């Protein structure tokens, strides 16, 4: 008879007497399981001794095994985590984050970009298309992320490159997928429909609380507020019947927003509560670089309080989706694109970066895109972002979150850690997994 053991990557969360929530960090979001009522006792019995004859053909045990909670006793789970890390880092698709302009119509208080570089030239646009066309057969798929600046300030560039890359992928018979990070100000219904036709299906729009706080933090170049127009755009977008798109509403919480969190979440409920195409992603404003953040110093909550923010949201129990937080439980998304070997950020001037933060960090700029469409990059610089081995510490071997974190999800942290000794390499989500498990709506769980 095969011997089994409990996986070292299990999270077990007791939520009162009638529900257990389970998550296995190695299996990721697909392991999410809720055990209800009388099955709870049975689960504890299995956990006490998973090698009883009676479990061998037991359906519940087989399900728990399938979801990764019990593994064969000979299994080396650390080796499996290493294999997974290799799979994630060497994702065989090409991931391009393109900045069609580095200028922005907003001047957000916490923004780290200097907006000095404007719109992408025709030459750089051509180079991107040439590069993809020459190399697409070396990859399994093309993933485009539109970023900026504000990408909709250069809609013509987005249209031109999208149309051509879609055609390149069609001819090469490779899947094409795209998303956009936008402030939402110019995302009118007409523009949105145009973008859907360009296969841009995933959006991230930031709303920082109610009008009073949002307009204080996210104002236009002329200092006027942006809240009303963004909300109007979101209402219009949600009125269409298309089911193909997803919108993540990102909120960067400050003390001010947290003080009005109940009113804000109620507002979100009214705005998109029952619409599964929309979900809320909760973050804390942090010092992401740049100078303007100094003015916000008294509003920063501090990264260690992330768990408290999630707890506050849970107390209010808003009827909105937090689907976007599934990425915190899934290495294939939690691992930053900067850590992927085949991921590049293309600046509006053709410079190539790994990370969309901190463009002035010397390690970030790894090369440039030539006029001929060749990516001229310093592979040793690229390797610094991809190889996370040096971040691994002794404690990682025993960490229950390692199956997801895979020795550090943020390579910028690693680079800073090498520069500034003592930098904490653990992701903050590690300390909030139980809260995030509660935040994730029940429909993303299997039920036992």
């Amino acid at each position, binding site marked *: 008879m095969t011997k089994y053991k409990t996986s070292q990557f299990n999270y077990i969360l007791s939520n009162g007497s009638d529900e257990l929530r389970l998550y296995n960090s190695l299996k990721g979001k697909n392991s999410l399981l809720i055990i209800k009522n009388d099955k709870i006792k049975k689960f504890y019995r299995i956990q006490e001794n998973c090698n009883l004859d009676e479990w061998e053909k037991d359906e519940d045990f087989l399900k728990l095994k399938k979801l990764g909670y019990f593994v064969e006793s000979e299994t080396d789970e650390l080796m499996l985590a290493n294999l997974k890390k290799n799979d994630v880092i060497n994702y065989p698709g090409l991931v391009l984050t393109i900045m069609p302009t580095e200028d922005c119509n907003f001047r957000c208080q916490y923004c780290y970009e200097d907006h000095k570089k404007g719109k992408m030239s025709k030459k750089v646009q051509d180079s991107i298309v040439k590069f993809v066309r020459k190399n697409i057969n070396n990859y399994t798929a093309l993933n485009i992320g539109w970023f900026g600046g504000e990408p909709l300030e250069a809609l013509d560039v987005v249209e031109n490159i999208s149309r051509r890359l879609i*055609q390149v992928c069609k*001819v090469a018979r490779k899947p094409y997928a795209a998303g956009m990070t936008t402030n939402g100000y110019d995302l009118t219904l007409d523009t949105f429909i145009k973008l859907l036709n360009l296969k841009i299906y995933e959006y991230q729009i930031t709303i920082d609380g109610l009008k009073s706080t949002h307009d204080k933090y996210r104002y236009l170049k002329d200092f006027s507020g942006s809240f009303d127009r963004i909300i109007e755009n979101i209402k219009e977008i949600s009125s269409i019947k298309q089911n193909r798109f997803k919108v993540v509403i990102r909120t960067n919480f400050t003390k001010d927003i947290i003080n009005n969190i109940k009113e804000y979440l109620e507002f979100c409920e009214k705005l998109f509560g029952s619409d599964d195409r929309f979900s809320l992603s909760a973050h804390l404003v942090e010092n992401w670089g740049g100078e303007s953040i100094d003015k916000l110093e008294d509003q920063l909550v501090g990264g260690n309080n992330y768990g408290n923010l999630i707890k506050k949201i849970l107390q209010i129990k808003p009827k909105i989706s937090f689907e976007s937080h599934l990425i915190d439980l899934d290495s294939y998304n939690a691992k930053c694109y900067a850590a992927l070997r085949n991921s590049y950020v293309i600046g509006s001037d053709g410079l190539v970066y790994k990370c969309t933060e901190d463009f002035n960090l010397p390690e970030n700029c790894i090369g440039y895109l030539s006029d001929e469409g060749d990516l001229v990059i310093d592979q040793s610089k690229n390797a610094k972002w991809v190889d996370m081995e040096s971040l691994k510490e002794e404690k990682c071997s025993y960490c229950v979150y390692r199956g997801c974190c895979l020795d550090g999800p943020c390579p910028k942290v690693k680079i800073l850690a090498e520069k500034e000794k003592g930098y904490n390499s653990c992701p903050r989500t590690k300390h909030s997994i139980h809260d995030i498990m509660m935040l994730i709506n029940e429909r993303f769980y299997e039920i036992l």
Partner: protein
Amino acid sequence: MKYRDQVVQVLEEMGILIESDEYDVNLQDFIVDSIQFITFIVNVEEKLNLTFPDEYLNYDNIETLHKFCEILENI
């Protein structure tokens, strides 16, 4: 150019897009090894119903689309 459209079609069938406004293109950027090269030549032969003479079977002949089409016309 007499055979350009058919050669572009062969390239598309091999997964290589030549954009409509492109005058010329370096085919060696896309056809990078001997197997791809021979596949391309065989596909062109089938499409145009001709036989590519052995003395022209030289990788340098696909340096540009333009040059390759000229060679085809001279066969």
